[in-house]
Protein backbone atom coordinates (compact mmCIF):
# COMPACT_ATOMS: atom_id res chain seq x y z
CA UNK A 1 0.00 0.00 0.00
CA UNK A 2 1.39 3.41 -1.03
CA UNK A 3 1.46 5.71 1.98
CA UNK A 4 3.20 8.74 0.47
CA UNK A 5 3.29 9.77 -3.16
CA UNK A 6 5.15 12.78 -4.54
CA UNK A 7 4.76 13.43 -8.24
CA UNK A 8 6.84 16.01 -10.10
CA UNK A 9 7.19 18.27 -7.05
CA UNK A 10 8.87 21.66 -7.37
CA UNK A 11 9.73 24.08 -4.63
CA UNK A 12 11.58 27.40 -4.69
CA UNK A 13 12.72 29.57 -1.82
CA UNK A 14 13.14 33.32 -1.99
CA UNK A 15 16.49 34.25 -0.50
CA UNK A 16 17.59 37.89 -0.53
CA UNK A 17 15.00 38.64 -3.23
CA UNK A 18 16.41 35.84 -5.38
CA UNK A 19 14.38 32.77 -6.26
CA UNK A 20 16.38 29.66 -5.42
CA UNK A 21 15.03 26.33 -6.70
CA UNK A 22 15.22 23.70 -3.95
CA UNK A 23 13.21 20.83 -5.42
CA UNK A 24 13.20 20.18 -9.14
CA UNK A 25 10.59 17.64 -10.10
CA UNK A 26 10.80 15.17 -7.23
CA UNK A 27 8.90 11.94 -7.57
CA UNK A 28 8.86 9.27 -4.89
CA UNK A 29 6.61 6.73 -3.25
CA UNK A 30 6.71 5.24 0.23
CA UNK A 31 4.98 1.98 1.03
CA UNK A 32 3.55 1.13 4.45
CA UNK A 33 6.17 -0.38 6.77
CA UNK A 34 9.13 0.87 4.77
CA UNK A 35 12.24 2.56 6.22
CA UNK A 36 13.53 4.97 3.60
CA UNK A 37 16.50 7.27 3.77
CA UNK A 38 17.15 10.54 1.93
CA UNK A 39 20.85 11.25 1.62
CA UNK A 40 22.66 14.14 0.10
CA UNK A 41 24.75 17.18 0.87
CA UNK A 42 23.36 20.23 2.69
CA UNK A 43 20.97 22.17 0.48
CA UNK A 44 20.10 19.17 -1.64
CA UNK A 45 16.43 19.36 -0.54
CA UNK A 46 16.18 16.53 2.04
CA UNK A 47 14.50 18.58 4.78
CA UNK A 48 12.21 20.31 2.29
CA UNK A 49 10.90 16.93 1.11
CA UNK A 50 10.31 15.89 4.72
CA UNK A 51 8.53 19.20 5.44
CA UNK A 52 6.26 18.78 2.43
CA UNK A 53 5.42 15.19 3.40
CA UNK A 54 4.80 16.36 6.97
CA UNK A 55 2.40 19.13 5.94
CA UNK A 56 4.52 21.89 7.45
CA UNK A 57 5.54 23.28 4.07
CA UNK A 58 3.92 23.12 0.67
CA UNK A 59 5.09 22.41 -2.86
CA UNK A 60 4.92 25.15 -5.49
CA UNK A 61 4.06 22.63 -8.16
CA UNK A 62 3.31 18.92 -8.38
CA UNK A 63 1.10 16.47 -6.54
CA UNK A 64 1.54 15.39 -2.95
CA UNK A 65 -0.55 12.70 -1.37
CA UNK A 66 -0.02 11.48 2.17
CA UNK A 67 -2.21 8.65 3.35
CA UNK A 68 -4.54 9.48 0.44
CA UNK A 69 -4.97 13.03 1.68
CA UNK A 70 -4.23 16.27 -0.18
CA UNK A 71 -2.65 18.28 2.66
CA UNK A 72 -2.68 21.58 0.77
CA UNK A 73 -6.44 21.94 0.80
CA UNK A 74 -6.87 21.20 4.52
CA UNK A 75 -7.78 23.89 7.05
CA UNK A 76 -5.32 24.56 9.87
CA UNK A 77 -7.54 22.63 12.26
CA UNK A 78 -7.73 19.54 10.02
CA UNK A 79 -4.08 19.64 9.06
CA UNK A 80 -2.99 20.00 12.71
CA UNK A 81 -5.20 17.04 13.60
CA UNK A 82 -3.76 15.06 10.69
CA UNK A 83 -0.16 15.75 11.78
CA UNK A 84 -1.05 14.86 15.35
CA UNK A 85 -2.79 11.57 14.60
CA UNK A 86 -1.12 10.27 11.43
CA UNK A 87 2.45 11.57 11.60
CA UNK A 88 5.31 11.57 14.07
CA UNK A 89 8.25 13.98 13.96
CA UNK A 90 11.82 13.48 15.17
CA UNK A 91 14.29 16.35 14.90
CA UNK A 92 18.06 16.65 14.96
CA UNK A 93 17.97 18.98 18.00
CA UNK A 94 15.32 16.84 19.73
CA UNK A 95 12.95 19.86 20.02
CA UNK A 96 11.53 18.83 23.36
CA UNK A 97 9.44 21.30 25.36
CA UNK A 98 11.91 22.45 28.03
CA UNK A 99 9.32 23.12 30.75
CA UNK A 100 7.81 19.65 30.51
CA UNK A 101 9.23 16.45 31.99
CA UNK A 102 10.05 13.40 29.85
CA UNK A 103 6.66 11.96 30.77
CA UNK A 104 4.82 15.18 29.92
CA UNK A 105 6.68 15.61 26.62
CA UNK A 106 5.58 12.16 25.50
CA UNK A 107 2.09 12.81 26.85
CA UNK A 108 1.60 16.12 25.03
CA UNK A 109 0.40 14.77 21.60
CA UNK A 110 -2.14 12.60 23.45
CA UNK A 111 -3.43 15.67 25.31
CA UNK A 112 -3.98 17.33 21.94
CA UNK A 113 -6.03 14.28 20.90
CA UNK A 114 -8.23 14.71 23.97
CA UNK A 115 -7.48 11.24 25.29
CA UNK A 116 -8.52 10.81 28.90
CA UNK A 117 -5.90 10.96 31.63
CA UNK A 118 -5.94 7.30 32.67
CA UNK A 119 -5.44 6.06 29.11
CA UNK A 120 -2.75 8.68 28.52
CA UNK A 121 -0.88 7.53 31.59
CA UNK A 122 -1.05 3.88 30.46
CA UNK A 123 0.23 4.66 26.97
CA UNK A 124 2.99 7.02 28.14
CA UNK A 125 4.20 4.52 30.76
CA UNK A 126 4.31 1.82 28.05
CA UNK A 127 6.21 4.11 25.70
CA UNK A 128 8.69 5.10 28.43
CA UNK A 129 9.27 1.41 28.95
CA UNK A 130 9.73 0.85 25.21
CA UNK A 131 12.32 3.62 24.85
CA UNK A 132 14.03 2.54 28.07
CA UNK A 133 13.41 5.68 30.10
CA UNK A 134 11.09 4.84 33.02
CA UNK A 135 13.76 5.91 35.51
CA UNK A 136 13.99 9.47 34.21
CA UNK A 137 10.34 10.10 33.44
CA UNK A 138 10.15 13.03 35.83
CA UNK A 139 13.30 14.68 34.54
CA UNK A 140 13.16 17.74 32.39
CA UNK A 141 15.10 17.81 29.07
CA UNK A 142 17.99 19.81 30.54
CA UNK A 143 18.52 17.00 33.04
CA UNK A 144 18.81 14.34 30.30
CA UNK A 145 21.70 13.28 28.04
CA UNK A 146 21.49 13.71 24.27
CA UNK A 147 20.60 10.06 23.79
CA UNK A 148 17.91 10.21 26.45
CA UNK A 149 16.43 13.32 24.89
CA UNK A 150 16.24 11.69 21.48
CA UNK A 151 14.58 8.67 23.08
CA UNK A 152 11.99 10.99 24.59
CA UNK A 153 11.51 12.56 21.14
CA UNK A 154 11.03 9.08 19.65
CA UNK A 155 8.53 8.30 22.41
CA UNK A 156 6.66 11.51 21.64
CA UNK A 157 6.63 10.69 17.91
CA UNK A 158 5.39 7.13 18.41
CA UNK A 159 2.98 7.41 21.31
CA UNK A 160 0.11 8.38 19.01
CA UNK A 161 0.78 5.21 16.95
CA UNK A 162 1.36 7.17 13.72
CA UNK A 163 1.38 5.68 10.25
CA UNK A 164 4.52 7.57 9.28
CA UNK A 165 7.48 8.93 11.26
CA UNK A 166 9.49 11.73 9.72
CA UNK A 167 12.99 11.95 11.15
CA UNK A 168 15.31 14.77 10.17
CA UNK A 169 18.95 13.96 11.07
CA UNK A 170 17.89 11.93 14.11
CA UNK A 171 21.47 11.00 14.99
CA UNK A 172 23.02 14.31 13.95
CA UNK A 173 23.56 15.43 17.50
CA UNK A 174 24.47 12.11 19.04
CA UNK A 175 27.71 10.19 19.38
CA UNK A 176 28.10 7.08 17.23
CA UNK A 177 27.22 4.60 19.96
CA UNK A 178 24.11 6.47 21.08
CA UNK A 179 23.11 7.05 17.47
CA UNK A 180 23.31 3.33 16.80
CA UNK A 181 21.16 2.59 19.86
CA UNK A 182 18.57 5.11 18.69
CA UNK A 183 18.48 3.52 15.24
CA UNK A 184 18.11 0.06 16.81
CA UNK A 185 15.13 1.41 18.73
CA UNK A 186 13.49 2.82 15.63
CA UNK A 187 14.15 -0.38 13.68
CA UNK A 188 12.49 -2.31 16.49
CA UNK A 189 9.45 0.01 16.37
CA UNK A 190 9.31 -0.41 12.60
CA UNK A 191 9.38 -4.18 12.79
CA UNK A 192 7.03 -4.42 15.76
CA UNK A 193 4.35 -1.94 14.67
CA UNK A 194 5.01 -1.73 10.91
CA UNK A 195 5.46 2.01 11.32
CA UNK A 196 6.86 3.67 8.20
CA UNK A 197 10.00 5.78 8.68
CA UNK A 198 11.55 8.33 6.37
CA UNK A 199 14.91 9.79 7.35
CA UNK A 200 16.99 12.67 6.11
CA UNK A 201 20.65 12.16 7.03
CA UNK A 202 24.30 12.47 6.13
CA UNK A 203 25.14 9.52 8.36
CA UNK A 204 25.88 6.20 6.53
CA UNK A 205 25.13 4.37 9.78
CA UNK A 206 21.50 5.54 9.58
CA UNK A 207 21.17 4.46 5.97
CA UNK A 208 22.41 0.99 6.94
CA UNK A 209 19.18 0.46 8.90
CA UNK A 210 16.90 1.41 6.01
CA UNK A 211 15.47 -0.63 3.18
CA UNK A 212 15.95 2.04 0.51
CA UNK A 213 18.30 4.98 0.04
CA UNK A 214 17.40 7.94 -2.20
CA UNK A 215 20.39 10.10 -3.09
CA UNK A 216 19.64 13.76 -3.69
CA UNK A 217 21.71 16.38 -5.42
CA UNK A 218 20.62 19.94 -6.12
CA UNK A 219 16.95 19.20 -5.59
CA UNK A 220 16.68 16.05 -7.62
CA UNK A 221 16.84 12.35 -6.83
CA UNK A 222 19.90 11.17 -8.65
CA UNK A 223 20.21 7.60 -7.43
CA UNK A 224 18.19 4.98 -5.57
CA UNK A 225 19.85 2.02 -3.91
CA UNK A 226 19.24 -0.71 -1.39
CA UNK A 227 21.84 -1.05 1.34
Amino acid at each position, binding site marked *: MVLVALQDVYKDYIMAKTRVPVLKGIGLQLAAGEMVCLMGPSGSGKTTILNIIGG*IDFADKGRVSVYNQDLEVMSDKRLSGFR*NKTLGFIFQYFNL*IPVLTAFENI*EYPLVLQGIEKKERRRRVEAMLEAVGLPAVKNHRPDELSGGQRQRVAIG*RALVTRPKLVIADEPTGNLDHKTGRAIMELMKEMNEKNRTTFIFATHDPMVSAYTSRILHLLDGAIVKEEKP
Partner: protein
Amino acid sequence: MSTLFLALRNLFRNKRRTMLTLTAITTGIMALVLFDGFVRYTLWGLQESTIRNGLGHLQLSTAEEYFTTGNFDPFSYLFTDPDEITKKLKVLPEVKEVVPQVTFSATLAGADKSGIVMVQAVPAELSRSLLSFRNIIDGRDFTAADRYRVILAKGVAEKIGARVGDTLTMMAVTRNGGLNAADMEVAGIASLGLRELDNIQVYLDLPTAMDFLDITSVPLLITVLEKTEYTGEVQKTITQRLKPKLGQPLVVKTWEELADYYRQVQEFYRSLLQIVRLIIMLVVIFTIVNTMTMAVLERTREIGTLRAIGTQKTGIMELFLAEGLWIGFFGGIFGVLMGLAGSSFINTALGGIYIPPPPGMAEGYQAFFVPAFATVWQNLLLAVTISVLASIYPALKGVKLKIAEALRYI
Protein backbone atom coordinates in the same frame (compact mmCIF):
# COMPACT_ATOMS: atom_id res chain seq x y z
CA MET B 1 -2.02 19.11 31.23
CA SER B 2 -3.98 22.17 30.20
CA THR B 3 -2.93 25.32 28.38
CA LEU B 4 -3.05 27.19 31.70
CA PHE B 5 -0.69 24.62 33.24
CA LEU B 6 1.81 24.88 30.37
CA ALA B 7 1.55 28.69 30.43
CA LEU B 8 2.27 28.72 34.16
CA ARG B 9 5.39 26.60 33.63
CA ASN B 10 6.53 28.90 30.84
CA LEU B 11 6.21 31.85 33.19
CA PHE B 12 9.01 30.52 35.34
CA ARG B 13 11.47 29.57 32.58
CA ASN B 14 12.98 33.07 32.36
CA LYS B 15 12.64 34.07 35.99
CA ARG B 16 14.49 37.34 35.68
CA ARG B 17 12.36 38.65 32.87
CA THR B 18 9.16 37.45 34.49
CA MET B 19 10.21 39.18 37.72
CA LEU B 20 10.80 42.44 35.86
CA THR B 21 7.40 42.25 34.20
CA LEU B 22 5.71 41.33 37.47
CA THR B 23 7.49 44.23 39.18
CA ALA B 24 6.16 46.65 36.57
CA ILE B 25 2.58 45.41 36.97
CA THR B 26 2.85 45.15 40.76
CA THR B 27 4.19 48.70 41.05
CA GLY B 28 1.51 50.02 38.73
CA ILE B 29 -1.34 48.31 40.54
CA MET B 30 0.09 49.26 43.95
CA ALA B 31 0.25 52.90 42.83
CA LEU B 32 -3.36 52.71 41.65
CA VAL B 33 -4.55 51.15 44.92
CA LEU B 34 -2.70 53.81 46.95
CA PHE B 35 -3.88 56.68 44.79
CA ASP B 36 -7.41 55.37 44.86
CA GLY B 37 -7.23 55.13 48.66
CA PHE B 38 -5.93 58.70 48.87
CA VAL B 39 -8.64 60.08 46.56
CA ARG B 40 -11.31 58.19 48.43
CA TYR B 41 -10.22 59.56 51.80
CA THR B 42 -9.85 63.09 50.42
CA LEU B 43 -13.32 63.03 48.86
CA TRP B 44 -14.77 61.56 52.02
CA GLY B 45 -13.15 64.35 54.05
CA LEU B 46 -14.46 67.00 51.68
CA GLN B 47 -17.90 65.40 51.69
CA GLU B 48 -18.12 65.36 55.47
CA SER B 49 -16.71 68.89 55.85
CA THR B 50 -19.21 70.10 53.26
CA ILE B 51 -22.11 68.42 55.04
CA ARG B 52 -21.03 69.40 58.54
CA ASN B 53 -20.16 73.00 57.67
CA GLY B 54 -23.83 73.85 57.53
CA LEU B 55 -25.11 72.12 54.41
CA GLY B 56 -26.53 69.09 56.22
CA HIS B 57 -27.54 65.92 54.39
CA LEU B 58 -30.91 67.14 53.12
CA GLN B 59 -32.34 70.61 52.75
CA LEU B 60 -36.10 71.18 52.72
CA SER B 61 -37.68 74.34 51.40
CA THR B 62 -41.00 75.49 50.04
CA ALA B 63 -39.88 76.13 46.47
CA GLU B 64 -37.18 75.15 43.99
CA GLU B 65 -36.28 78.82 43.52
CA TYR B 66 -35.25 79.14 47.14
CA PHE B 67 -32.02 77.31 46.36
CA THR B 68 -31.03 79.91 43.78
CA THR B 69 -32.40 83.24 45.11
CA GLY B 70 -33.39 82.37 48.69
CA ASN B 71 -30.38 83.97 50.36
CA PHE B 72 -31.36 87.36 48.96
CA ASP B 73 -35.08 87.01 49.59
CA PRO B 74 -35.74 84.44 52.32
CA PHE B 75 -39.12 86.01 53.15
CA SER B 76 -40.88 84.71 50.04
CA TYR B 77 -40.20 81.09 51.01
CA LEU B 78 -41.17 80.83 54.68
CA PHE B 79 -42.80 77.57 55.82
CA THR B 80 -46.39 77.81 57.04
CA ASP B 81 -45.76 75.33 59.84
CA PRO B 82 -42.10 74.23 60.13
CA ASP B 83 -42.72 72.44 63.45
CA GLU B 84 -45.16 69.98 61.82
CA ILE B 85 -42.54 68.96 59.26
CA THR B 86 -39.82 68.75 61.94
CA LYS B 87 -41.97 66.43 64.06
CA LYS B 88 -42.67 64.11 61.12
CA LEU B 89 -39.03 64.03 60.09
CA LYS B 90 -37.82 63.22 63.57
CA VAL B 91 -39.90 60.05 63.58
CA LEU B 92 -37.63 58.60 60.89
CA PRO B 93 -34.88 56.50 62.56
CA GLU B 94 -32.22 57.68 60.10
CA VAL B 95 -32.77 61.32 61.05
CA LYS B 96 -30.46 62.62 63.75
CA GLU B 97 -31.54 66.25 63.84
CA VAL B 98 -33.72 68.73 62.00
CA VAL B 99 -32.29 72.22 62.14
CA PRO B 100 -34.39 75.26 61.17
CA GLN B 101 -32.26 77.83 59.41
CA VAL B 102 -32.37 81.30 57.95
CA THR B 103 -29.67 82.38 55.55
CA PHE B 104 -29.48 85.93 54.35
CA SER B 105 -26.99 88.42 53.00
CA ALA B 106 -26.06 91.40 55.11
CA THR B 107 -23.51 94.16 55.43
CA LEU B 108 -21.23 93.93 58.43
CA ALA B 109 -19.34 97.00 59.52
CA GLY B 110 -16.45 97.26 61.96
CA ALA B 111 -14.69 100.36 63.22
CA ASP B 112 -12.98 101.11 59.89
CA LYS B 113 -14.07 98.53 57.37
CA SER B 114 -17.26 96.84 56.21
CA GLY B 115 -18.17 94.02 53.89
CA ILE B 116 -20.95 91.89 52.47
CA VAL B 117 -21.39 88.64 54.35
CA MET B 118 -23.61 85.60 54.24
CA VAL B 119 -25.33 85.05 57.56
CA GLN B 120 -26.31 81.55 58.60
CA ALA B 121 -28.59 81.41 61.62
CA VAL B 122 -29.51 78.23 63.46
CA PRO B 123 -30.55 77.51 67.05
CA ALA B 124 -27.41 77.56 69.22
CA GLU B 125 -28.24 74.23 70.83
CA LEU B 126 -28.45 72.52 67.42
CA SER B 127 -25.44 74.19 65.85
CA ARG B 128 -23.00 71.50 66.96
CA SER B 129 -24.78 68.73 65.08
CA LEU B 130 -25.00 70.83 61.92
CA LEU B 131 -21.70 72.66 62.15
CA SER B 132 -19.51 70.02 63.70
CA PHE B 133 -16.62 70.82 61.32
CA ARG B 134 -16.65 74.48 62.39
CA ASN B 135 -13.47 74.99 64.34
CA ILE B 136 -13.59 77.90 66.81
CA ILE B 137 -10.04 79.24 66.75
CA ASP B 138 -10.63 82.26 68.97
CA GLY B 139 -13.34 83.14 71.51
CA ARG B 140 -16.17 80.68 72.06
CA ASP B 141 -19.18 78.97 70.50
CA PHE B 142 -22.74 80.18 71.11
CA THR B 143 -24.67 79.22 74.19
CA ALA B 144 -28.48 78.98 74.14
CA ALA B 145 -28.69 82.25 76.06
CA ASP B 146 -26.63 84.25 73.55
CA ARG B 147 -28.46 87.01 71.70
CA TYR B 148 -27.09 89.53 69.23
CA ARG B 149 -23.70 87.92 69.15
CA VAL B 150 -21.89 86.69 66.02
CA ILE B 151 -19.27 84.16 65.14
CA LEU B 152 -17.14 85.27 62.22
CA ALA B 153 -15.36 83.03 59.77
CA LYS B 154 -11.60 83.65 59.83
CA GLY B 155 -11.46 85.39 56.45
CA VAL B 156 -14.32 87.74 57.34
CA ALA B 157 -12.67 88.70 60.65
CA GLU B 158 -9.42 89.45 58.81
CA LYS B 159 -11.13 91.55 56.13
CA ILE B 160 -13.13 93.64 58.59
CA GLY B 161 -10.33 93.70 61.12
CA ALA B 162 -12.60 92.40 63.88
CA ARG B 163 -11.51 90.63 67.06
CA VAL B 164 -13.37 88.74 69.76
CA GLY B 165 -15.28 91.18 71.96
CA ASP B 166 -15.57 93.87 69.24
CA THR B 167 -18.96 95.28 68.42
CA LEU B 168 -19.96 95.25 64.77
CA THR B 169 -22.99 96.67 63.04
CA MET B 170 -25.09 94.39 60.89
CA MET B 171 -27.44 95.80 58.27
CA ALA B 172 -29.97 93.84 56.23
CA VAL B 173 -33.31 94.17 54.53
CA THR B 174 -36.18 92.95 56.72
CA ARG B 175 -39.46 91.27 55.82
CA ASN B 176 -41.36 94.51 55.25
CA GLY B 177 -38.64 95.83 52.92
CA GLY B 178 -37.10 98.23 55.39
CA LEU B 179 -33.44 98.30 56.34
CA ASN B 180 -32.62 97.15 59.86
CA ALA B 181 -29.33 97.68 61.64
CA ALA B 182 -28.18 96.18 64.92
CA ASP B 183 -25.01 95.97 66.94
CA MET B 184 -23.55 92.51 67.38
CA GLU B 185 -20.74 91.44 69.64
CA VAL B 186 -18.11 89.07 68.22
CA ALA B 187 -18.33 85.91 70.35
CA GLY B 188 -15.84 83.87 68.37
CA ILE B 189 -13.82 83.39 65.20
CA ALA B 190 -14.01 80.10 63.33
CA SER B 191 -12.06 78.29 60.68
CA LEU B 192 -14.25 76.40 58.21
CA GLY B 193 -11.60 74.69 56.12
CA LEU B 194 -13.02 75.87 52.80
CA ARG B 195 -11.63 79.18 51.63
CA GLU B 196 -14.83 80.22 49.84
CA LEU B 197 -16.75 79.87 53.13
CA ASP B 198 -14.02 81.39 55.28
CA ASN B 199 -14.22 84.63 53.31
CA ILE B 200 -17.96 85.19 53.57
CA GLN B 201 -19.63 83.25 56.38
CA VAL B 202 -21.02 84.73 59.60
CA TYR B 203 -23.05 82.82 62.20
CA LEU B 204 -25.94 84.05 64.27
CA ASP B 205 -28.33 82.33 66.63
CA LEU B 206 -31.78 81.74 65.11
CA PRO B 207 -33.95 83.78 67.59
CA THR B 208 -31.74 86.82 67.02
CA ALA B 209 -31.92 86.41 63.24
CA MET B 210 -35.72 86.04 63.32
CA ASP B 211 -36.05 89.07 65.54
CA PHE B 212 -33.63 91.05 63.37
CA LEU B 213 -35.45 90.13 60.12
CA ASP B 214 -38.89 90.39 61.70
CA ILE B 215 -40.02 86.89 60.74
CA THR B 216 -41.83 84.16 62.70
CA SER B 217 -40.97 81.20 60.51
CA VAL B 218 -37.98 79.87 58.58
CA PRO B 219 -37.48 79.20 54.86
CA LEU B 220 -35.23 76.19 55.32
CA LEU B 221 -35.11 72.96 57.33
CA ILE B 222 -31.81 71.18 57.32
CA THR B 223 -31.82 67.47 58.06
CA VAL B 224 -28.76 65.85 59.59
CA LEU B 225 -28.75 62.05 59.24
CA GLU B 226 -27.07 59.37 61.32
CA LYS B 227 -25.01 58.34 58.30
CA THR B 228 -24.34 60.01 54.95
CA GLU B 229 -25.21 56.76 53.14
CA TYR B 230 -28.86 57.20 54.19
CA THR B 231 -29.23 60.41 52.15
CA GLY B 232 -30.86 58.97 49.03
CA GLU B 233 -33.11 56.65 50.96
CA VAL B 234 -34.43 59.39 53.29
CA GLN B 235 -34.92 61.79 50.38
CA LYS B 236 -37.09 59.13 48.75
CA THR B 237 -39.06 58.56 51.96
CA ILE B 238 -39.72 62.27 52.42
CA THR B 239 -40.72 62.80 48.78
CA GLN B 240 -42.88 59.70 48.46
CA ARG B 241 -44.38 59.30 51.94
CA LEU B 242 -44.18 62.59 53.79
CA LYS B 243 -44.77 65.19 51.11
CA PRO B 244 -48.23 64.02 49.97
CA LYS B 245 -49.54 64.19 53.57
CA LEU B 246 -48.41 67.79 54.15
CA GLY B 247 -50.66 70.69 53.49
CA GLN B 248 -47.75 72.87 52.44
CA PRO B 249 -45.31 72.82 49.50
CA LEU B 250 -42.05 70.98 49.99
CA VAL B 251 -38.87 70.62 47.94
CA VAL B 252 -36.09 68.28 49.08
CA LYS B 253 -32.48 68.61 47.92
CA THR B 254 -29.56 66.37 48.81
CA TRP B 255 -26.21 67.76 49.90
CA GLU B 256 -24.68 66.47 46.68
CA GLU B 257 -27.11 68.48 44.57
CA LEU B 258 -26.20 71.61 46.49
CA ALA B 259 -22.45 71.13 46.88
CA ASP B 260 -21.10 72.49 43.58
CA TYR B 261 -17.55 72.70 44.87
CA TYR B 262 -17.61 69.10 46.07
CA ARG B 263 -18.87 67.93 42.68
CA GLN B 264 -16.13 69.84 40.90
CA VAL B 265 -13.44 68.38 43.14
CA GLN B 266 -14.91 64.91 42.74
CA GLU B 267 -14.90 65.29 38.97
CA PHE B 268 -11.33 66.60 39.08
CA TYR B 269 -10.08 63.66 41.13
CA ARG B 270 -11.96 61.15 39.01
CA SER B 271 -10.38 62.57 35.87
CA LEU B 272 -6.98 62.57 37.55
CA LEU B 273 -7.46 58.94 38.58
CA GLN B 274 -8.37 58.01 35.00
CA ILE B 275 -5.27 59.77 33.67
CA VAL B 276 -3.01 58.05 36.22
CA ARG B 277 -4.69 54.74 35.42
CA LEU B 278 -4.17 55.28 31.70
CA ILE B 279 -0.47 56.14 32.13
CA ILE B 280 0.14 53.13 34.36
CA MET B 281 -1.71 50.86 31.99
CA LEU B 282 0.31 52.11 29.02
CA VAL B 283 3.52 51.30 30.92
CA VAL B 284 2.15 47.85 31.78
CA ILE B 285 1.06 47.22 28.18
CA PHE B 286 4.44 48.27 26.84
CA THR B 287 6.25 46.02 29.34
CA ILE B 288 4.09 43.00 28.59
CA VAL B 289 4.21 43.44 24.82
CA ASN B 290 8.00 43.72 25.07
CA THR B 291 8.37 40.68 27.34
CA MET B 292 6.01 38.49 25.37
CA THR B 293 7.46 39.48 22.01
CA MET B 294 10.88 38.50 23.33
CA ALA B 295 9.39 35.22 24.54
CA VAL B 296 7.87 34.50 21.12
CA LEU B 297 11.21 35.25 19.46
CA GLU B 298 13.15 33.05 21.87
CA ARG B 299 10.65 30.24 21.57
CA THR B 300 10.28 30.34 17.78
CA ARG B 301 11.61 26.79 17.33
CA GLU B 302 9.44 25.56 20.20
CA ILE B 303 6.37 27.12 18.57
CA GLY B 304 7.33 25.36 15.34
CA THR B 305 7.63 22.06 17.23
CA LEU B 306 4.27 22.51 18.96
CA ARG B 307 2.65 23.25 15.62
CA ALA B 308 4.39 20.29 13.94
CA ILE B 309 3.14 17.81 16.51
CA GLY B 310 -0.41 19.00 16.10
CA THR B 311 -1.08 22.17 18.06
CA GLN B 312 -3.49 24.39 16.15
CA LYS B 313 -2.95 28.12 15.61
CA THR B 314 -5.65 28.76 18.21
CA GLY B 315 -3.66 26.62 20.67
CA ILE B 316 -0.59 28.84 20.24
CA MET B 317 -2.82 31.91 20.67
CA GLU B 318 -4.35 30.47 23.83
CA LEU B 319 -0.93 29.60 25.23
CA PHE B 320 0.40 33.16 25.02
CA LEU B 321 -2.88 34.70 26.18
CA ALA B 322 -2.79 32.32 29.15
CA GLU B 323 0.74 33.47 29.96
CA GLY B 324 -0.51 37.06 29.83
CA LEU B 325 -3.38 36.08 32.10
CA TRP B 326 -1.03 34.56 34.68
CA ILE B 327 1.32 37.56 34.59
CA GLY B 328 -1.64 39.91 35.02
CA PHE B 329 -3.11 37.77 37.77
CA PHE B 330 0.10 37.49 39.81
CA GLY B 331 1.07 41.11 39.14
CA GLY B 332 -2.43 42.23 40.10
CA ILE B 333 -2.52 40.14 43.27
CA PHE B 334 0.92 41.31 44.40
CA GLY B 335 0.05 44.89 43.45
CA VAL B 336 -3.20 44.81 45.42
CA LEU B 337 -1.50 43.23 48.45
CA MET B 338 1.37 45.73 48.32
CA GLY B 339 -1.12 48.57 47.93
CA LEU B 340 -3.12 47.41 50.95
CA ALA B 341 0.05 46.86 52.99
CA GLY B 342 1.34 50.30 51.92
CA SER B 343 -1.96 51.93 52.91
CA SER B 344 -1.90 50.22 56.27
CA PHE B 345 1.71 51.27 56.87
CA ILE B 346 1.03 54.91 55.98
CA ASN B 347 -2.12 55.03 58.11
CA THR B 348 -0.77 53.29 61.20
CA ALA B 349 3.01 53.69 61.26
CA LEU B 350 3.20 57.17 59.73
CA GLY B 351 -0.17 58.43 60.99
CA GLY B 352 -1.08 59.57 57.48
CA ILE B 353 0.71 62.01 55.20
CA TYR B 354 0.39 65.78 55.51
CA ILE B 355 -1.08 67.34 52.39
CA PRO B 356 -0.75 71.14 51.97
CA PRO B 357 -3.99 73.09 51.32
CA PRO B 358 -5.39 72.05 47.94
CA PRO B 359 -6.92 74.72 45.67
CA GLY B 360 -9.98 76.26 47.38
CA MET B 361 -9.14 74.86 50.82
CA ALA B 362 -8.03 77.03 53.70
CA GLU B 363 -5.98 74.41 55.51
CA GLY B 364 -3.87 71.39 54.76
CA TYR B 365 -4.86 68.02 56.11
CA GLN B 366 -3.50 64.68 57.21
CA ALA B 367 -4.33 62.28 54.41
CA PHE B 368 -5.03 58.63 55.05
CA PHE B 369 -5.26 55.93 52.41
CA VAL B 370 -8.55 54.09 52.43
CA PRO B 371 -8.84 51.88 49.33
CA ALA B 372 -12.36 50.63 48.65
CA PHE B 373 -12.91 46.88 48.42
CA ALA B 374 -14.67 47.26 45.07
CA THR B 375 -11.91 49.33 43.46
CA VAL B 376 -9.25 46.95 44.78
CA TRP B 377 -10.90 44.15 42.82
CA GLN B 378 -11.44 46.46 39.86
CA ASN B 379 -7.70 47.09 39.79
CA LEU B 380 -6.98 43.37 39.93
CA LEU B 381 -9.42 42.78 37.08
CA LEU B 382 -7.85 45.66 35.19
CA ALA B 383 -4.37 44.11 35.56
CA VAL B 384 -5.58 40.77 34.23
CA THR B 385 -7.57 42.31 31.36
CA ILE B 386 -4.80 44.65 30.26
CA SER B 387 -2.26 41.85 30.51
CA VAL B 388 -4.34 39.51 28.35
CA LEU B 389 -5.06 42.28 25.82
CA ALA B 390 -1.37 43.21 25.69
CA SER B 391 -0.54 39.57 24.92
CA ILE B 392 -2.68 39.52 21.78
CA TYR B 393 -0.06 41.17 19.57
CA PRO B 394 2.84 38.86 20.59
CA ALA B 395 0.49 35.87 20.43
CA LEU B 396 -0.46 36.80 16.85
CA LYS B 397 3.23 36.97 15.98
CA GLY B 398 3.56 33.43 17.32
CA VAL B 399 0.51 32.25 15.40
CA LYS B 400 1.74 33.73 12.12
CA LEU B 401 5.07 31.89 12.23
CA LYS B 402 5.57 29.45 9.35
CA ILE B 403 6.26 26.03 10.83
CA ALA B 404 9.11 25.07 8.53
CA GLU B 405 10.85 28.43 9.08
CA ALA B 406 10.24 28.29 12.82
CA LEU B 407 11.85 24.84 13.00
CA ARG B 408 14.93 26.16 11.20
CA TYR B 409 15.24 29.11 13.61
CA ILE B 410 18.39 29.13 15.73
